């Protein structure tokens, strides 16, 4: 279905569709996409993405009877099942979860949107059909597991708001249980309040007919800490785009990502960390292993504003190319306006280390096993801080990926 038909035929299905301000904004974004008015040359986040492909899809969304559920497993473990972007409204002493209501409209408009030239954000705004509001209360210590269930052919355009209140300590996990032929354009607006400590693990593993565009805008206040780990084993297209603003002193942020690509898959990663306050630390590490004809892009940016003295900002990207048909594009950027900083970035791309391979082979290990050992050790250091369950998920996926190498 054409983009125009999607927009016109379904305009009543969208959230806040009655609101005139938003209707005007949607109309503007709609015209922008129609004109294809994006600076593709200077905006690397649109690399490998065909704009006409993005806007051409069959919009499909309806309220189904599959009941989403919030399960309280014990006093600290919660499992939240989100079905096609909808959740069960729930509140207890620790958390409050509800679907977006009309009165959330102002928060929606106020969201920190520094991706003005991004078609995926524009599409999210135009077709927004679901959204969840999470409120994690003060001083709580919780493990929250969020499972995104999307039914066949659904196009989910979701905008979520998460508030991690003061002093909470949260392990937050995102799992994507996508059916077939789905489009998931999900936007997170996260606030990490003073002294809150958040560990956010994102597991992406789904079949090739699905597409996931995951965007997050996170604001960290004083003394807070936000650690995000993204593991992408998907066979379908994934775009991870994460923005973090360190607005309070002594805030820390860490973004880690591992992606394992094969066949014709494409994965785009973009991270942007803005240091707005003194004594903040940021760390970004992205690693990728590419097989067959896959393509990966990694853009990272660390921006240090002039009043963010005593900043530490580190970036690292490493890529292993297993065949000569895959490609990796990396652009780690530093933009620094304060003088008392320690910032660095490193980037390497290459094949599996031949010396290491030779060492293992000379000890009687066959080539496949040796490759597996080297690749496992390549990401092992990023798995150290994971809990037992998360490690099991990663190990299983990694084993599958490594076994697929031996099949070639």
């Amino acid at each position: 279905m054409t983009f125009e038909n999607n927009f016109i035929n379904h305009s009543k299905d969208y959230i806040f569709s009655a609101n005139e301000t938003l209707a005007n904004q949607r109309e503007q974004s709609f015209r922008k996409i129609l004109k294809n008015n994006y600076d593709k040359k200077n905006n690397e986040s649109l690399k490998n993405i065909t704009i006409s492909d993005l806007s051409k899809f069959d919009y499909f969304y309806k309220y189904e009877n599959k009941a989403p559920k919030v399960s309280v497993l014990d006093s600290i473990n919660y499992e939240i099942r989100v079905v096609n972007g909808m959740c069960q409204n729930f509140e207890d002493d620790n958390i409050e979860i509800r679907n977006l209501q009309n009165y959330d409209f102002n928060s929606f408009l106020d969201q920190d949107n520094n991706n003005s030239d991004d078609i995926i954000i524009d599409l999210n705004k135009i077709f927004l059909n679901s959204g969840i509001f999470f409120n994690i209360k003060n001083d709580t210590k919780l493990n929250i597991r969020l499972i995104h269930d999307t039914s066949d052919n659904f196009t989910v355009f979701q905008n979520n708001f998460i508030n991690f209140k003061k002093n909470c300590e949260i392990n937050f996990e995102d799992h994507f249980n996508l059916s077939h032929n789905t489009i998931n354009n999900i936007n997170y607006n996260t606030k990490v309040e003073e002294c809150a400590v958040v560990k956010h693990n994102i597991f992406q593993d789904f079949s090739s007919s699905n597409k996931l565009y995951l965007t997050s805008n996170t604001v960290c206040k004083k003394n807070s800490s936000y650690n995000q780990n993204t593991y992408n084993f998907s066979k379908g297209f994934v775009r991870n785009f994460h923005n973090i603003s360190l607005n309070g002193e002594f805030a820390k942020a860490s973004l880690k990502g591992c992606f394992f690509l094969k066949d014709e898959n494409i994965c785009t990663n973009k991270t942007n960390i803005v240091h707005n306050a003194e004594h903040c630390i940021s760390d970004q590490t992205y690693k990728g292993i590419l097989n067959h004809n896959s393509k990966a892009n990694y853009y990272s940016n660390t921006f240090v504003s002039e009043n963010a003295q005593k900043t530490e900002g580190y970036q690292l990207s490493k890529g292993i190319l297993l065949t000569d048909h895959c490609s990796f594009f990396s652009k780690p950027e530093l933009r620094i306006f304060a003088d008392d900083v320690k910032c660095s970035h490193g980037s390497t791309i290459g094949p599996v280390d031949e010396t290491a391979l030779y060492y293992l082979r000379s000890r009687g290990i066959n080539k496949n096993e040796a490759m597996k050992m080297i690749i496992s050790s390549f990401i092992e250091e990023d798995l150290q801080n994971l809990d037992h369950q998360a490690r099991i998920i990663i190990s299983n996926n990694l084993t599958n990926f490594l076994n697929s190498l031996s099949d070639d």
Partner: protein
Amino acid sequence: MDTETSQTLDKYAQDKYKYGFVTEIESDRPKKGLDEKIIKFISQKKNEPNWMLSWRLDCYKKWLKMSDPKWANLKFPRIDYQDIYYYSSPKGFENKPKDLSEVDPKLIETYNKLGIPLEEQKVLAGVAVDAVFDSVSVATTYKGELEKLGIVFCSISEAVQTHPELVKKYLGSVIPPGDHSFSALNSAVFTDGSFVYIPENVKCPMELSTYFRINAEETGQFERTLIIADKGSYVSYLEGCTAPQRDRNQLHAANVELIALENAEIKYSTVQNWYPGDEEGKGGIYNFVTKRGLCKGKNSKISWTQVETGSAVTWKYPSCILKGDNSIGEFYSVAITNNFQQADTGTKMTHIGKNTRSKIISKGISLGNSQNTYRGNVSFLRKADKARNYTQCDSLLVGNKCGAHTIPYIDSKNNSAVVEHEASTSKINEDQLYYCRQRGLSHEEAVSLIVNGFCKQVLQELPMEFAVEAQKLVSISLEGSVG
């Protein structure tokens, strides 16, 4: 920032550009603005053959359809191309003087003031100099000695007359005129520059050098340099630039093309010290330079070394296309920006051939209100088996009004190629400063020592003649201003 540092910073801010004098010399120039007539005028002044004129006109037509590149991290007002003189020559230069005795003594004096005593260098240093004043090449020294070896070192205007086959074959072969608007503009209106041809298996026994000087007001300088190193040859080429102190911005858009054939090596060094503008950011040169080298043959090597201290705006990316198998590209750069200077500089290494190697060392130092950006592109194409790149770019920041930015683009399409990139940004290490001060060095001396150490990796790549000048330039630029 401590008081001592502020004091030394202020002191530096008062340091004046010492090459800002104007030589009162009559110049011959047509009206302002750019159109086909001006191009015909330039071509006629240079007595160029028809093929050259039609090439220029083609480039002009291309330029008319293009807009200026906007991706650089630079802010400057739109350039009014109709408000510039495109040709200026010291009067009486219709026929180039045969030797230095025929050159206007005022010009010789100018170059002496700049520290380029042509006569002296000719005799003592053994450096062959081609001096370009505004749009005209003033004198080329040591020509006779070079001719004995078959080396051609002359102005490009002369080469169009004497070696048309080489100019025709290679001009625009590395930087196609349609590449971007500045290259098209230069191709249409270039006035002079150097031409070097090193024949097969000849190692050029001396450094070849060009000194560029913009003297006339509201004049743009568009020089074009073409260096061809034939099989098995070697040449080291030096380039220096200055301009008078003026309130208005002046444009400099140069194109430099290098071609290294099989087993040949070209070493190209630049000390760029165009007038950077005053403390308020008024005046200064807009420096839009396209430099590109093609390692065409197997085992060839091109090495760029640059010390960038001048210009209000610098837009410069000396690049290498590594086409021949086993070819090598190198880029060493020190870029210092102060006051309201802006620099967006770096390199582009394109690996096409097998076993090609490249190395990038870039050091950026920002002071005052300046913005200093390193922008580098390293790409490995499908056939670049076993290619390798190593990039290191470090930045030093002084004061919280300036900015240091690092924007590398790394693209690998070959799984046997290895790319390593590392970068760091920081201020001067307090421990090092403390260590030096303890040993009796003044704050200024300590800073100068540390910064020279910071740049050493690049400065040591410069040929002797330039290393001294560059080191002094770095010291002047940084004297006591880092802390």
